[in-house]
């Protein structure tokens, strides 16, 4: 069961590289407490899920790289090739000359339709190289223009074209005190669209990962590279293949796994089905024991509420709206997004 990764924009591509690098080095690192046979099964499973084999033995990442300007993709391709251990497919990238200018409307309404065919073809080619496709892993930021706008567009397309496959979006939540001034607009537009077309949104907040680097890892001068590596490590451990209930040497290939905190049970969910434990003996990425927690909880209310609040505040003054209407995103589109997200906030609050 393979996963095709779509890396979008600067953030998506920079993180995507770190994820594949982590997955590769994990499958080749020490096996920890498990047996050799287990290790081999683990490696095979990992590899097949994220890489495909090339003639001269260098695995190729099952990925499509998309950006609207060339600098980051060029860097990403050369970093992968430099490692000599794995690489991206030769024709796996799609690039344009001029970026999206941090404008969601430009990413969604201009770059989307203009490049739809080319990008979907590229994805199709990658899908054809899978024996069986379990789903798509889309990496994007929600604050910028390409990852957010084009990302929303592509996710919708994937829903239309591959309705039976899973769509999991890794979204990067921007720092609270701005990387991009219109980040709140871009975020609410992205979230409202993804809400309708994505199956699962895996959220990572820049602020949170930054704190991890500072407090838990004691890094003095934290770079985006550090942040992305921590993120990749977390993602990698989420994607670890695990034992299935059938037999001990049979690795389950379902990508979604996690522990669920008993305190979060709602009244309408049976504790049995809500709490799933997936185990593996195999060590992950140089750690002998590790645990990954993926939860669907109310933790998201506060950041979501803050972003909606700030975006609403800015929207009330109509600041920057002319930049969006220029490309076909009108005030009604903003209002639709606000309405949907307020409903999400309410739903989570009422649990």
């Amino acid at each position, binding site marked *: 069961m393979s996963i095709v990764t779509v890396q979008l924009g600067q953030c998506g591509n920079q993180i995507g590289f770190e994820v594949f690098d982590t997955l590769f080095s994990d499958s080749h690192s020490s096996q920890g407490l498990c047996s050799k046979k287990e290790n081999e099964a683990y490696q095979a499973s990992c590899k097949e899920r994220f890489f495909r084999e090339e003639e001269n033995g260098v695995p190729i990442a099952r990925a499509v790289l998309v950006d609207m300007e060339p600098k980051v993709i060029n860097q990403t391709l050369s970093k992968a090739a430099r490692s000599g251990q794995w690489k991206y497919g030769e024709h796996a990238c799609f690039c344009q000359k001029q970026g999206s200018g941090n404008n969601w409307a430009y990413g969604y309404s201009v770059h989307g339709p203009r490049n739809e065919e080319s990008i979907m073809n590229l994805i199709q080619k990658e899908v054809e190289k899978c024996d069986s496709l379990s789903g798509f892993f889309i990496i994007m930021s929600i604050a910028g*223009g390409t990852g957010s706008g084009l990302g929303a567009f592509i996710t919708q397309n994937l829903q239309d074209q591959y309705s039976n496959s899973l769509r999991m979006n890794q979204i990067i939540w921007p720092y609270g005190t701005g990387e*991009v*001034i219109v980040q709140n607009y871009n975020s609410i537009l992205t979230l409202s669209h993804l809400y309708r077309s994505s199956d699962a949104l895996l959220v990572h907040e820049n602020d949170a990962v930054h704190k991890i680097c500072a407090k838990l890892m004691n890094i003095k001068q934290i770079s985006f590279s550090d942040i992305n590596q921590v993120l990749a490590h977390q993602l990698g451990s989420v994607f670890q293949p695990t034992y299935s209930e059938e037999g001990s040497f049979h690795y389950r290939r379902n990508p979604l796994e996690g522990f669920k905190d008993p305190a979060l049970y709602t009244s309408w969910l049976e504790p049995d089905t809500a709490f799933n434990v997936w185990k593996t003996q195999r060590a992950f990425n140089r750690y002998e024991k590790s645990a990954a927690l993926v939860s669907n909880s109310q933790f998201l209310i506060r950041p979501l509420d803050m972003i909606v609040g*700030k975006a609403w505040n800015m929207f009330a003054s109509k600041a920057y709206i002319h*930049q969006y209407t220029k490309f076909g995103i009108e005030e009604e589109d903003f209002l639709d997004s606000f309405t949907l997200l*307020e*409903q999400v906030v309410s739903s989570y609050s009422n649990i």
Partner: protein
Amino acid sequence: MTQSVVIQVGQCGNQIGCCFWDLVLREHAAVNQKGIYDEAISSFFRNVDTRVIGDGGSISKGKIRSLKARAVLIDMEEGVVNEILQGPLRDVFDSKQLITDISGSGNNWAVGHKVFGSLYQEKILEKLRKSAEHCDCLQCFFIIHSMGGGTGSGLGTFLLKVLEDEFPEVYRFVTSVYPSGEDDVITSPYNSILAMKELNEHADCVLPIDNQSLFDIISKIDLMVNSGKLGKTVKPKSLITSNAGAFKKQQRRPFDAMNNIVANLLLNLTSSARFEGSLNMDINEISMNLVPFPQLHYLVSSLTPLYTLADINVPPRRLDQMFSDAFSKDHQLIQADPKHSLYLACALMVRGNVQVSDLRRNIERLKPSLQFVSWNQEGWKTSLCSVPPVGHSHSLLALANNTCVKPTFVELRERFMRLYKKKAHLHHYLQVEGMEESCFTEAVSSLSALIQEYSQLDATKSMPVEDIPRLSVAV
């Protein structure tokens, strides 16, 4: 990657432009060790095989043969452009990309705008179209001019309308040098106000510069360099006022040092679009993030550091000092004090060995002392470019959309009114065909409307930030 074309108009525009090309060549020479014509260089230069006659000489890849600046040089007098064409940069400019005349505009905006505008409109269009054809993906026109004279001010702003009509998708970034109080051109207030109307209506983004501020910055630098303070020496190449040939003790022209500061501004503005970094910022992102309403597109800029000491150990304290300096009124390129005015938006463009944690630390530290408009309380746009400027380990360009531009405009209007009330020198303008008194009254109205916008924003400064009621939805 995209390309940009620089249009330098008038004496000031061409002199600054010349400094810019000098520095950008030096920058690319330092970064591009192998002499390969890459996408970064192609943003400002064409690669040409000069042996080929006519137009077929462009080469898009491979080794650098001969670099030609993507520039159009316009002046209604020949002196300055001729000097450039005889100087060390003569081979960088394409001789076909010039428009000159001999009589000059006589410090008269009307002559520059109306007379030379109509006379040279076709020729200008032809040169611009040629430049655009040589670009794979043209993103931006950078116009450099002064506001107080006749050519830069009049013809320079005439150009804006032409660009808007002919290339509506391409950005128009204007670097405008405003006349200072002691300007020796008596009619500079007229010229500036007439030009302001054009900037209001046809520019995407304006970077106002003030000669007095540039002069003050130079005095500061001279003081540091000559005082022998701390016993450390300043790296000559790192001076923000130095030109590429700074190692030779050549006779410098009077405005060189000041022009180099402006040239550095343009260099740093485009660095994150040309070079790699962990958080890129393209030119179209500048407009997107810093212009909340179309008419409020005036950005106050500051550059730090002004020089680097020869000491290679740069502790974090020095890095933080760079951020603090960027907000001090001594470092702004116009007479303005952003700290005591209202921010609509702010961009920090960092180059060199600076990481996201340094950025965050400094934003948190400086935020409490700055006032942001109620609907953009955390309005920061940041970028990290890995390549530092030549001679520095890191640098910072801060762009602010801040109400501190207002005093400059108010003063300009006052100087204008002093002349206009007496109808002084007005006949020089009115005798030009197409000029009427209404041109003046409309121009002042346009400026007054702009000032009013800034005043209204200022009035919100002391008001408490009210929470706007949110949408209430049924679940």
